[in-house]
């Protein structure tokens, strides 16, 4: 296993009367795409900005590339950061903006090559303020790569982008991973995290409520797959009821949960044996989104109960 490039222990951040980050631990290995997920206000940005040496923690230990975060200047040379809601200089062109940030580092990459990589070489002389959201975000990603960083922090890089612009960002994150860079991603989009991440932590109310690879998380917390038998009707229900007691009819479609140890082929066999008619069978597996909604939802319910006590 590759070495840990980020190590976090007991990290806490308290504001006057709220605890934004409430004692979290995790580590990120070199070359991983690591995602921090969570609803609004979960504490994602507070966490990343502590790792980026932008905000001092209230307690806990953070080490980035083997350096303690008190050594901010040495760390900054080796990481790249795209802050949440990034804006560049409105009245500078794409190229001038990238050159500005490249000019801040002693060792910077070739700006032309970088612009080609983010596919902005054709628009390099346009003013930043005239760009579309997707292109602005590409400028942001370019500015976070000017120093050829070992770790790239991207705080909600796809928020507010259209599906195609979002896919562009995904492709770039994939490329970064192929180059061996470590990517620390925060996002609200489960689909994105499921597809891109090697490892995921889900945060809520400043705590990590669940962690693992996307597969592990779905296996552990996802519900059983559900089969929808379209057009099977009353007859289908009668045939299945005995073997699958929780089968239910929704209009003319059957909804059957395939619990652990059961197989979808059993459903087909029963229907065929009874010569029931149906249009199609759709199997829906749990996604990370289902898990996320369930876990954060459960927390909400728990809180409700606590409040009632």
């Amino acid at each position, binding site marked *: 296993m590759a070495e840990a490039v980020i190590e976090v222990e007991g990290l806490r951040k308290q504001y006057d009367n709220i605890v934004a980050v409430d004692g979290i631990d995790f580590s990120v290995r070199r070359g991983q795409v690591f995602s921090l997920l969570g609803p609004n206000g979960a504490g994602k940005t507070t966490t990343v900005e502590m790792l980026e040496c*932008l*905000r001092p923690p209230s307690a806990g230990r953070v080490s980035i590339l083997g350096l303690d975060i008190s050594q901010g200047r040495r760390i900054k040379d080796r990481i790249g950061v795209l*802050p949440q*809601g990034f804006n560049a*200089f409105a009245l500078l062109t794409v190229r*001038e903006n990238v050159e500005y*940030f490249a000019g*801040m*580092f002693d060792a910077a990459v070739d700006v032309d090559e970088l612009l080609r990589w983010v596919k902005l070489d054709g628009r390099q002389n346009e003013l930043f303020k005239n760009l579309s959201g997707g292109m602005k975000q590409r400028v942001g990603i370019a500015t976070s790569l000017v120093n050829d960083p070992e770790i790239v922090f991207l705080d909600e890089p796809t928020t507010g982008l259209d599906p195609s612009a979002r896919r562009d960002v995904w492709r770039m994150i994939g490329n970064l991973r192929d180059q061996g860079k470590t990517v620390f991603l925060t996002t609200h989009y489960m689909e994105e995290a499921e597809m891109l991440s090697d490892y995921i932590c889900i945060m809520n109310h400043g705590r990590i409520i669940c962690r693992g690879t996307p597969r592990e998380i779905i296996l552990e917390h996802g519900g059983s797959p559900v089969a929808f038998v379209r057009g099977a009707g009353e007859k289908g229900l009668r045939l299945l009821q005995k073997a699958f007691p929780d089968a239910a009819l929704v209009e003319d479609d059957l909804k059957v949960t395939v619990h652990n140890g059961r197989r979808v082929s059993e459903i087909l066999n029963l229907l065929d044996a009874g010569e029931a008619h149906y249009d199609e069978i759709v199997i829906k597996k749990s996604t990370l989104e289902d898990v996320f909604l369930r876990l954060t939802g459960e927390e909400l319910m728990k809180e409700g109960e606590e409040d009632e006590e």
Partner: protein
Amino acid sequence: MRSRALVDLKATVLEFKRSPSAVFWTLAFPILLILIFGAIFSGNGAGAYILYVQDLDGSPQSEQFLEILNGTGQVEVMMAGADEDPEKLISDKGLSSFLIIPAGFGQNLSAGENVTLDFRWDSGSQVAITNYNVVKSVADSMNLAVQGADERISVGTGSIVDDRLTFIDFFLPGVLALTIMYSTINYMVLTITQYKSQGLFRKMMTTPLRRSEWLASRIIWQIILSFISVAIIISIGSLLFDLNATINIVMVLLILAGTALFTSMGMAIAGLISDEERADAAAGAVVFPMMFLSGIFFQVEAMPGFLQTVAMALPLTYLVDGLRDAMVYGNMAGAVFNLAVVTGLAAVFAVLGTMLTRWKQE
């Protein structure tokens, strides 16, 4: 420092060039001011101003003259004792005009001889011009009353400042100070609040750029901008109007100190108030009173007493006075005093501004 401050400076110049509003307010607006006020104020004003009069004669004729002068309602006569030194009074009270009725005024008049009133003034001051016109018209009316209709009483003027001075000489240093003040404050407040709200400071913090390097770049830029405005304003003044103001080292130092002062003030305002709109309003609340109460458009001397007190508390007043002393009156002692005040204030605000301009979030 490496060249990071220069990288930032280059970006600042480019942003400035592409911002029509920044260019207008720093470069075009002062030109408009000079053109408009240069044209308007070359005439005379209205209203009753205070006029100090020293009656060295004490004859019925001189008393009659004073009575008529008072009766016009256009000046408010203040009597100076016969034993007082006019020069001292003028400088102590910062007067722009002073009338002396010479000894022998009544006697000579009765003897049918010509007499001359001694009117000392700063011909660049609108107050002095108005007072002069009132004195002159009173003298003329007495002339008419005297038989012979000759110009028996004339008003001789003696300048209390350099004779060659015109209105524009008096007005131009004020415009310089004003331009430095508002363009610097506005520009600092605008950039700092915008960079904050757009997250640019946060992004800059993730690079090795230091806050001190960024501040150095800003201050260098504001100084360059101040000198560009000064050069433009002085060129216009000398091309279109009869400008006699001089350029000297104290004036240059005043411009440097003034730029530092208002840059720091802008930083302090933006440091105290992060919200863009509110910071803009706060900047206005600082800029406008200074604009109108620092003796640029209206002389401090012509203001009601309490406003004069306010004016003395405004930093811009000292920059205006200093620039006038240095460029117009050739009063180097006064200029250096004002320079010291502006520099002192700049130091105070620099400390305040730097303390308040935080990059780091809590």
